[in-house]
């Protein structure tokens, strides 16, 4: 038996086939250009670093000044964003627990007042959000805290290449923020003998980079509230403990 189909149905099928092929082509092209970040490297062992011992605490820092390494690991050059990324490593060698948090890390540049870490939204302007509809879907998103957000969308069937490019940029930004989120130092209680590390983002505008800076890491003794503080000098061309 021969089954014939009306011309209009055949055209529709052809159109669907073409559209699917187009979507597949765009998807493959974008997948090939997808940002690949190096896996997050563990923080270096404190014993391998030059460290400061203060009140039963051992503290070391690693300022991130290698722009290329930053791009490979986090997908972004933090210095371009006026931010100095510092990996902070603290070991509690005392008999009492201490509290550690990014809010206890400061930088004083060019003789200015000490400043705390920058909030994440300052690092990247929040990318524009394009409305989702049946032809788009969210492919990457990072939420800093509870309400702040950065999300990236891709519009697979978008005819407008500008929209497609803009969404790819958003996606890359979200992936970078994801990598930074995972590397961050978070509030913690360090029991005796314990060690913690993580990335802290400090303000570091271009105009202060010619002068020496001082980075201080504090921890609070849990019972007494006493503050133990270790400070490091950052020369204009690199760290100098």
């Amino acid at each position: 038996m021969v089954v014939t189909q009306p011309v209009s149905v055949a055209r529709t099928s052809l159109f669907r086939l073409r559209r699917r092929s187009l979507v597949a082509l765009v998807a493959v092209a974008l997948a090939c250009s997808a940002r690949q970040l190096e896996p997050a490297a563990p923080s270096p062992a404190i014993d391998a670093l030059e460290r400061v011992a203060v009140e039963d605490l051992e503290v070391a820092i690693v300022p991130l000044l290698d722009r290329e390494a930053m791009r490979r690991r986090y997908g972004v050059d933090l210095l371009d964003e006026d931010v100095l990324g510092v990996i902070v490593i603290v070991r509690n060698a005392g008999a009492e627990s201490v509290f550690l948090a990014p809010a206890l890390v400061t930088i004083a540049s060019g003789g200015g007042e000490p400043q705390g870490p920058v909030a994440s939204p300052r690092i990247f302007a929040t990318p524009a959000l394009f409305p989702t509809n049946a032809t788009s879907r969210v492919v990457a998103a990072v939420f800093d805290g509870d309400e702040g957000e950065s999300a990236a969308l891709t519009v697979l069937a978008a005819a407008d290449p500008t929209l497609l490019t803009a969404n790819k940029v958003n996606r890359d930004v979200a992936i970078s923020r994801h990598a930074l989120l995972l590397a961050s130092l978070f509030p913690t209680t360090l029991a005796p003998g314990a060690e913690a590390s993580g990335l802290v983002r400090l303000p570091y505008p271009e105009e202060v980079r010619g002068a020496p800076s001082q980075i201080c890491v504090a921890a609070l003794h849990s019972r007494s509230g006493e503050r133990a503080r270790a400070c490091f000098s950052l020369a204009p061309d690199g760290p100098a403990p």
Partner: protein
Amino acid sequence: MTRARTIALAAASLLCLAPPAPRETTPRLEPIPPLALPTLPVHELPIALVIDERMRGRSKALRAYRMGDLAANLERVARAAFASVEVVETADDRDGQAGVLTASLAGSGHAAPIGDVQDHRTAVVLTWTLVDGDGCLVWADTFVGHGEQSWQGSVVRAWRDAIEDSLRAAHRALAKSPDIAAYAQRSRAENRASQPAPSDDCPVDPGDLGLSGES
């Protein structure tokens, strides 16, 4: 062809040409299955667990990926680590408990590179704090939970894995914390003496760590 039939056909054609309906902006929350936790030491400390509405699936971050209502599993974690738990909405609702436990969402991330050829990778970061009756910090810690699903897998499943990973780590840390155990012991001693130790100032306030003390 009758006029009515022509109109019906035209209407049907228009329906076919109509753009697809926009996707729901607030997707339905997925039910989160009960979290199974191992048996670990339990602190003999009555606490109030603060679960505000954001942790009940109403925050933007929780809604975006249908992460759902975390309240039931937060409560399971607290009940697995403390002998007595009362759930309250704010720390002010505490009714004589020796401690106030809170969990807050410090961040979350999702990366599923386009092209559907790479894995879904998700991370959920929850910061927990325990303060004493005066609001002074006893313990704080942050747990990054990871979830990963193949490109064919469910992104919702990846989120659920990340949440469960974070909650299990929190349970282990709560149950094994020497600081919480020491505080529970001090608290019991004060109760036996019926004379709570006066505290003029907090040695450490949650604000000192940049934490609000409430979720």
